[in-house]
């Protein structure tokens, strides 16, 4: 078992490794964490995820841009690959399930992939349908997996018009499914007009919004 000081040092190294997009460092300290008995879940949440949260702030402040964020994401996944299999019992219980994809007609998936990463790291089970996804696929996958959330992404003004259609299709088959929308042309107002249950302004916000949506759902006794 690592002593507190050593554990802090390891978590800090994981945090820094993600922020500095130092994949080698993340791999090294993920192994160190396991070797020294640091809880894998803690290493993910207080090391990798905390680092990614700071990356989100750096992006929002225009200190980091997509190339840096992608590198941070690569570093984070390198750590997740090592640590996730060691997350045990109670902690491995998933927070929820999400079906995610970029809607039909839209091949832009960088934003969607960053949102997916945030769900991954937050402990959701993610069913990623990819990009240019036929609307029926969202309906089928939600029903098949019984996911609480369907997250829809669009970059183009034309493809965003697919969103109200797919929301209607999903709700018709499962009124309890919660729909989150995001992407460059989407705003809270657009999300409301489309009948979405949540709006993700950015990747970090997506997870917070999803957790709140699931909480609301559970409070209402629908889940």
């Amino acid at each position, binding site marked *: 078992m690592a002593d507190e000081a050593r554990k802090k040092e390891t978590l800090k190294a994981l945090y820094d490794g993600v922020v500095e997009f130092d994949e080698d460092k993340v791999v090294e300290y993920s192994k160190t964490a396991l070797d020294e008995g640091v809880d894998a879940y803690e290493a993910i949440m207080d090391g990798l995820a905390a680092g990614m949260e700071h990356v989100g702030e750096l992006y929002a402040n225009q200190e980091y*841009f997509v190339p840096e964020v992608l590198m941070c994401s690569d570093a984070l996944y390198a750590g997740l690959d090592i640590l996730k299999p060691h997350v045990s019992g109670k902690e491995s219980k998933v927070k929820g399930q999400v079906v995610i994809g970029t809607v039909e007609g839209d091949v832009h998936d960088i934003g969607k992939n960053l949102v997916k990463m945030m769900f991954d790291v937050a402990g959701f089970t993610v069913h990623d349908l990819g990009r240019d996804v036929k609307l029926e696929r969202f309906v089928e996958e939600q029903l098949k997996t019984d996911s609480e959330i369907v997250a829809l992404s669009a970059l183009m003004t*034309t*493809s965003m018009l697919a969103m109200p259609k797919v929301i209607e299709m999903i709700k018709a088959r499962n009124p309890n499914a919660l729909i989150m929308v995001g992407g460059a042309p989407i705003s809270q107002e657009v999300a409301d007009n489309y009948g979405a249950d949540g709006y993700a302004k950015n990747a970090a916000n997506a997870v917070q919004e999803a957790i709140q949506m699931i909480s609301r759902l559970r409070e209402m006794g629908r889940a």
Partner: protein
Amino acid sequence: MSEQKKPRQETMTSAERMGAILMRQRPDRIPFMPFIFGYCARNVGYPIHAVYDDAEKSFWAQMWTAEMYGYDGGAMYGYASMGGWEFGGEIKMPQSEWEQAPVVKSFPAPTPEAVDALEIPDVETAGCYPIAIEFAKMQQKFGMPIMVMGMSPFTSAGNISEVDVLCRWMMKKPEVAHKLLRKVTIFAKNVIDYFIEHFPNYPMMAFTGEATSANQIISPKQFEEFVLPYMKEFHDYILQSGIRNIFCHICGEQNLNLPYWAQMEYGDPGILSFGHEVDLTTAIKYFGDKHAIAGNIEPQIIQNRPWQEVYELCRIAIEKAKDAPSGYLLMAGCEVPVQAPPYNIYVMKKAVMDLGFYD
């Protein structure tokens, strides 16, 4: 709109109006150049892909739609995802109701090895260029200036490798990114050479545009290293080739990049168009003395909001930019969406007719 006003009398044709802008003279009113492609096909009953894969249909769909709405600027050929098809990848033409432009289906150089192996294509057979050449012949046949669709190196490189791959190379293997950018720049220059050679002494303008370099994706520092040198070189080459004017669409959030865009040449004058993210007052401050400014009505508003909001955005834009030193053209901030309500396009013209005349 119920209010009846006596219509203002236009004293120039569209060609004269655009000519006045390019001669640095004041036209009768600001030109209205909506930036519209797929919508035109839908407007005349063609499938949207016809505007990209059929030169004749593309030309006429645009000309008829221009006549119907009374906008200026005529017809041009091109789309944002150029590069992928031209360098040997596959493209998917718009088919479903949710699509409005071609997208790259398979990227020809997603690895450093593929970049090494990438050959500079022959313009005459590369991707969409046979269609673009046919389109240029239509423009020539009907006495219109040819708008040469130039391949902007950075955005085209993203369409060849895929944007996230290019972003990772910029960080980890910048030499690969530069190698790809060099190859695209060589091809882009070859395109200019081809048009100059095959349409000798014919009036031409070049179109360039950058979407992937927006600050929603890259930093100004990355712009300085990976966009500026190649775009600048390309613009210089276009102008040295004898093309006098460049129409450059500076797409998306580009505010942090404006000092670098200001280091490039656009001709005498160029026309620089902006998305809604760049305020027209800012654009005029950077470029207005030397170049005409176009933009920047938000496409999402044109597509989704009531006509009153579109008209109000046009009113604000005209108020800000009408007296720009080298002229102003009312334009959408990016391509007019194919599903835009027709009336929302009509009110853009109406705003020009109500507010855009020079007295």
